[in-house]
């Protein structure tokens, strides 16, 4: 599997030998690795928004990996998780998968199984990150609209006719058409349908 460039793998495992071994394996395929001995230390770490995934031991001192999964979700930190465990049972893996885990591997695992899971996780992370980037750009463009233009955009994406918009806002139909052209230019929208999709993303 092709690894996305600049992916970072976070490893949380209380066993130093396991952390060292995972670090070596992941570095050998060109991945950036950051290791943490406990959930608490990982929580304190602020990711930079680049594609990343988390390799997480289920059994951790001071709270299980499943607890950390819940905590990250509540904090809005969207990071794909690959669970590894020495004594996983079905109930535990079902719970982890339902909560959105990418994979649930038993120790010791095949290197390829782990690397495949990491590859998938980083792709997902990258997609999510790309989506976030695009949304941020869209916001910047939206910010350039005047308040009147935002008003008009609201009517356009709601599918109103120009003359209705004009009478409602107390302006001429010509003025509405001018606003529409400027809106399309500033938002880099190819069509009204394009503009509707952008409005949906902006929420």
């Amino acid at each position, binding site marked *: 599997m092709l690894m996305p460039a600049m992916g970072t793998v976070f490893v949380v495992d209380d066993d130093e*030998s*396991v952390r*060292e071994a995972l670090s070596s*394996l992941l*570095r*050998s395929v060109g991945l950036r690795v950051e290791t943490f001995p406990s959930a608490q230390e990982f929580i304190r770490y602020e990711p930079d928004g680049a594609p990343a995934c988390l390799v997480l031991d289920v*059994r951790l001192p001071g709270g299980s990996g499943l607890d950390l999964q819940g905590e990250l979700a509540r904090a809005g930190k969207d990071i794909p998780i690959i669970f590894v465990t020495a*004594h996983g049972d079905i109930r535990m893996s079902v719970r982890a998968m339902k909560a959105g885990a990418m994979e649930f591997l038993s120790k*010791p695992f095949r290197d390829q199984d782990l690397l495949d899971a990491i590859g998938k996780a980083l792709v997902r992370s990258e997609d999510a990150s790309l989506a976030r980037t695009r949304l941020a750009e869209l916001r910047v463009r939206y910010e350039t609209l005047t308040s009147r233009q935002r008003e008009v955009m609201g009517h356009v994406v709601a599918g109103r006719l120009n003359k209705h918009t004009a009478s409602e806002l107390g302006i001429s139909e010509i003025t509405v058409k001018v606003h529409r052209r400027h809106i399309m230019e500033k938002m880099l929208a190819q069509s009204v349908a394009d503009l509707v999709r952008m409005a949906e993303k902006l929420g």
Partner: protein
Amino acid sequence: MEDRTDEVVRLRAQIEALREDIQKLERTSGEMQAAAGRHENILDSITDRFFALDKDWRFTSFNKPAALQLKALGKDAAALIGKRLWDEFSDVPPAETFRAVMRDRIPVTHEHYYALLNEWVENRIFPGADGGIIVLQCYVTRRKRIEGYLADGQRLSGTGTWALNLGSGELFWSAEHFRIFGLDPEKVKPSYPSLLEWIHPQDRSALQNAFEHAVRVKGEYDMEFRIVRPDRTIRHVRALAHPVMNDDGELVEYVGAVIDMTERRRAEEALNTVQAELARVTRVTALGELAVSIAHEVNQPLTAVVTNAYSLMRWLDADPADLQESQSATERIIRDAKRASAVIARIRAFVKRGNDRKTRMQVNDALREVDGLVRREVQAQGVMLTLELAAALPLVLADKIELQQVVLNLVLNAIDAMRGVPDTSRFLTLGAEPYGVDAVLVTVRDTGLGLNPHQRNHVFDAFFTTKPDGMGMGLAISRSIVEAHGGHLWTSPNDDGGETFQFTLPTAASAEC
């Protein structure tokens, strides 16, 4: 004149004779009066109440205790003489019995509760020479109370008593004995042969053997067996017997008790089941926890070893190979493999330490306890178990529980091995004797089917079993326990059939030096 003289002589002789008769009569009368006085004295001196009635139910005499009793009831004995019983006493509890003796002239003994006196009385009623009746009455309240206590005691404790006359074969049972056996005292006459029919078929021969043995040695016996009641329910009973000898030392009778053990047995069985279940659960839980802990402790370094090996292959496969990373990965593999090994060594040391509960102990004590444990099972299987324990054995250094596990296992195997032989020839011997100067030899000998040479070669192998539902672990574990004690366990065939398992244990003196 002559005639008159003769007449006078004759008359005188007659007078003399009459006087002698009178004197004789007077003597007799005096004797009779004296005798009557003596009888009166005797009657007055006995504590029983005496009174006599003539054929018309008139009182003819009372003794003093009777007069005192009447006085207590507000009657004057002297005034009653010549009065009819039925006119004076409207409520005579044994009226029918009095009438029967008066009519049939056959003595009767009769007990009844005399409410006026608040006493139990016993009336012995005899036909009198004058055609009436004589009544002797005594208080039996105390005896009745003791009898009642005894019956209550028997009922409450579920203990019946019995006596067997060895001459006649007659068997006497108490009411509680009948109740335990579920039999009606009115309908069943117990005897030794009929007793055997009520014994559970599986226990019959063991009981018979034990009893016949006791009779031979004029000894006591104490047996537990099952009986089958007429309603087909099974009761567990314990019978104890004590021999009774005559002055010549001949055995004449056995007296004994029979105790209903069913409830106790049931409670014991329930307790045993709960204990066994608890022990099993505890063991399984402890093993489970230990296994999870071991799995985690060993799995972490193994995971690291495997992962390092994968990364080593990738560092070597790179172009160019990264020898420094490869070197580090290899060093980590060695380090983590050693760590896994150390975890296992630690667990092994822990398990060994946890099991080392050896104390200086008497082998005979441990064997007697095993005897107590298996006694019921041995009897149930119709096996005769004999202990042959040498006196004054040296102490051994052993874990008693483990030692007993081994012996118990061998004994249960022996019982299983004898299932295939008739129950009249199932003999089990459990013995202990010195073995050389520094060991004790424990022997478990059975008269079962024995082992064939192939079985004998493999009987100590793990998972080897001759039983359809056996695990094949008992003897393997037994051998390892014995060897952990510094002893040996082996088996050999008996000359007259069956198998003998033996093991040695070093004496405490030799084990400690």
